[in-house]
């Protein structure tokens, strides 16, 4: 695992904290390979992320595809209002709904 993702695991849940600020063509390759770290409930944490473009979205879709294949649940956390708008535009939010840190607590 590269250091582009910091992993936090408990029970069936894994939180994948994205540590790069820019989910773009430069970081896409490293991010997209990380889908192997998924668990039945996988949360991508965007707290550090200040930019996402379509090259980044393509990388994130690897997680969506993998979740669908395995029957895993995929969520996004700490998504900025701008990125919520973009995720809605491309209907990414249908496949990776946002989850509150609070709601995640019940899995701990």
């Amino acid at each position, binding site marked *: 695992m590269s250091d582009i993702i910091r992993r936090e695991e408990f029970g069936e849940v894994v939180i994948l904290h994205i540590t790069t600020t820019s989910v*773009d*063509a430069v970081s896409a390759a490293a991010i997209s390979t990380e889908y192997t770290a998924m668990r039945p409930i996988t949360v991508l944490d965007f707290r550090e992320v200040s*930019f996402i473009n379509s090259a980044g979205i393509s990388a994130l879709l690897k997680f969506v595809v993998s979740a*669908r294949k395995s029957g895993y649940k995929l969520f996004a956390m700490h998504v900025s209002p*701008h990125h919520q708008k973009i995720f809605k*535009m491309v209907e990414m939010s249908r496949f990776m709904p946002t989850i509150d840190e609070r709601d995640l607590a019940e899995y701990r």
Partner: protein
Amino acid sequence: MHRVELNIPSQPIFERVVRASAAEVGAAFGFSDERVEDLKLAISEAVNNAIDHGNRGEISKLVAVVFEIDGDKLEIRISDQGQGLEQFNPTRHVVDEQNLEQGQLRGFGMYLISELVDDYEVTSSQKGTVLTLRLYRRETQP
């Protein structure tokens, strides 16, 4: 009329240089943070297309970006040294079950651009493609 010009080699890392410049040009133009983000994203998509589809990643081919501030209009022209548009389909393209199943995980760039700018124009020839984006200053910034 103010003009800022930028030329980069066809390597994704330099798209970040254009994007950072775009953020400052947008702020200088008086855009809100949200519209600066829209601008950065639209330009990022255009530059990546110029690198990938236009110049096909040939690093020595340039991507030229011109920002022109003219009154209430901000116009950005992104040019490459490619062979013109490969194909062009600016219709709405979103994530759906079908393209997930088919492993079709790309193709959102032009759709995002069309949603994020006020208007745009594509000019293409054997000598390359020029994408012109236009954004206008509004009374109340969203």
